[in-house]
């Protein structure tokens, strides 16, 4: 949501002023306004699709929008910063729950992104050399990414079941790693269940992007490095990773945003009320608005989340691009 602010550059005037021999005012205006007219449909669509809902969401966050007003939400009383105050009052239960959920989400996102990137990159590097069945393996790796989210996650729900689930069958019945079957969908383990599914679903994307990035590294670099006596590890460290830098910069950001905002995975895994250890902020906000019918507070939380993601994205881009500018000289 936050990455879609497409940069609209000032249109270049297509005809230089001297080109028209007889400068008629109307004609010039007409010609000068043409690019803007052509841009108008895009602008209107952009407004309708992106900005209007966002603005409405922000307006909602300043209203006391409960079940008593949703039918005619124009009549809902303004609550000023009340919804925000409620959301960030970390001593009160609502704010405390939001903070907890936020911290869970940060921890979950960091772990998930790191694991997705590590597994994806490792797989991509291993798949670099040609061998029999490489195409098949690559296709297989992409399956989790290609599956419809709901179908994939509901399968995991079955596998994580306490009584008949495959996970407990393997861990407990066959490998005897636990004294008794564990619960994966409720209680403390739910965090790991969520992380597992998220990584399983996310790493193929990292794999795909890194594989594409690897194709752009000229083979001569490796040959030269090999002639200079660099081992595999050194080649990886000195050639592969630096060359992948721009790819990784985007990849990590996208993974971060996707994972942080992911709603489908926790919702399908846990339903409307997620267990506390896996209470991701997206479901938390859903619960705060839809399930408790308080859309004002829900919107305020969403706006806070948006601000946080904007700050993180801005800071990240600033840091990484500055770093690149100095190294690219």
């Amino acid at each position: 949501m936050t990455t879609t602010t497409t940069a609209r550059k000032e249109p270049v005037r297509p005809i230089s002023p001297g080109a028209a021999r007889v400068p008629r005012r109307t004609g010039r205006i007409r010609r000068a306004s043409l690019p803007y007219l052509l841009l108008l449909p895009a602008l209107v669509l952009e407004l309708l699709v992106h900005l209007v809902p966002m603005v409405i969401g922000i307006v909602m966050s300043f209203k006391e929008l409960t079940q008593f007003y949703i039918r005619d939400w124009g009549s809902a009383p303004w609550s000023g910063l009340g919804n925000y105050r409620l959301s960030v009052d970390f001593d009160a239960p609502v704010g405390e729950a939001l903070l907890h959920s936020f911290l869970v989400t940060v921890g979950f996102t960091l772990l998930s992104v790191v694991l997705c990137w590590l597994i994806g990159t490792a797989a991509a590097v291993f798949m670099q050399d040609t061998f029999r069945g490489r195409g098949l393996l690559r296709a297989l790796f992409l399956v989790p990414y290609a599956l419809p989210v709901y179908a994939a996650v509901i399968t995991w729900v079955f596998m994580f079941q306490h009584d008949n689930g495959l996970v407990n069958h393997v861990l407990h019945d066959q490998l005897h790693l636990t004294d008794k079957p564990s619960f994966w969908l409720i209680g403390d383990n739910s965090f790991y269940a969520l992380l597992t599914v998220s990584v399983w679903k996310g790493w193929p994307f990292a794999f795909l992007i890194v594989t594409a990035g690897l194709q752009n590294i000229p083979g001569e670099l490796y040959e030269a490095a090999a002639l200079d006596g660099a081992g595999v590890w050194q080649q990886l460290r000195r050639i592969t990773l630096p060359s992948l830098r721009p790819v990784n910069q985007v990849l990590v950001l996208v993974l971060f945003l996707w994972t942080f905002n992911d709603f489908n995975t926790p919702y399908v895994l846990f339903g409307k009320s997620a267990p506390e250890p896996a209470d991701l902020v997206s479901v938390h906000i859903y619960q705060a608005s839809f399930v408790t019918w308080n859309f004002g507070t829900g919107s305020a939380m969403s706006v806070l989340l948006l601000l946080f993601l904007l700050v993180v994205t801005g800071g990240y881009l600033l840091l990484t691009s500055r770093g690149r500018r100095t190294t690219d000289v």
Partner: protein
Amino acid sequence: MRSIRAAAVGAVTMSLALAATACGGGSSDQGGSGDSPKTLTYWASNQGASIAVDKKVLQPELDKFQQRTGIKVKLEVVPWSDLLNRILTATTSGQGPDVLNIGNTWSASLQATGALLAWDDENYSKIGGRDRFVDSALGSTGAQGKDPAAVPLYSMAYALYYNKQILADAGITKPPATWDELVADGKKIEAEGKSVIGVEGANVSENIHHVFVFAKQHGADFFTPEGKPDFTNPKVVDAVKQYVDLMAKDKIVPTGDAEYGQNQSVSDFAKGKQAMLLWQSAAANLKSQGMSEDAYGVAPVPVRSGVPGTGAQTNSMVAGINIAVFKNSHNVDGATKFVKFMTGDAEQKILNKAYSSIPPVKGAQGDPAFNAPATAVLKQTLATSAAALPQVPSESQFETAVGTAVKDLFADAAAGRTVTTDSVRAKLEKAQQQMPAA
């Protein structure tokens, strides 16, 4: 030059058209609010074993209605998981069905939104008057002192379903009538290697239905008479603890049930894995899962002592479905006719038989089908010992907050942590703090 102008004109028209359609989107008739008086849109709740079953039950009746009135009813069966969200969305946008089913516990909450047509005396007289309906069912149609937001359609009650064979094997001659007897019988059943009774620990609504009844049996309520949440009332805490203790202390509920949320406990019972089940009007559901009617018996839900009745002897919530008219409907007249049709004696008999529920209409209750042993218990419960869930605007928040607290407590019990009065009170206190201040 001409082509430039053409392009410019095209661009302007296109953007205008886009803007116009976007603004006009609100008034177009996509939800089927029905500008023409000859059609109605009806959202039915999922009552049968599947949505297909519901369509099969309802479509012939809708055809009958069309024959009589010339009004065509477009049916959509909405799964329970989506129904409330769909209603909320319809309320916000004003684009919804003409007639819809609601869970009767939502009546007061939805009434507060003002989205549903109020059933004042005039409207009631159009469908034959309020007197046609059973009192207990009318008690779940909206907040007290306000015109009801809905009309009772199907009534249901909780009962104790027991597997005759398993009880006989354990040497139990009659189903338990009190919780102590249930626990004692449970030990005998466990000795036979069967599990005793199931709960849907992760199903927020199921949890609410049960802890509400337990609270009644402890002589307490989740809300004060003024409608304020009172979740930490010591008696409420005891009641919730007693329910969770079925797993935590009495150990007659398998720990695996803590994550049940998709009616797995019904399957366990239907497959003969479990001796007992507390469920509302389960007959049709059990039949669809292949359990023969001879295999199980139906008894009233246990009480703490004595026999079911009012007050502390309450042993069920008034469960059921109400039918409501969406205020924004363009065809309120046709919608009212449809409600009259659905709550008529003849249709009530047909529909309630198909769903193994009890008609909330007095005139239909006399049908012998509702006096069969299984349904007689439900009917008796509804008439004498069922209480309506609190009819307060914040009911749906209460379901979420307290239902989740109970779910967490079951998760604790399943993980082997001890569930104490303090831990129960802490969870309920947190739930209460999440309730809206109003």
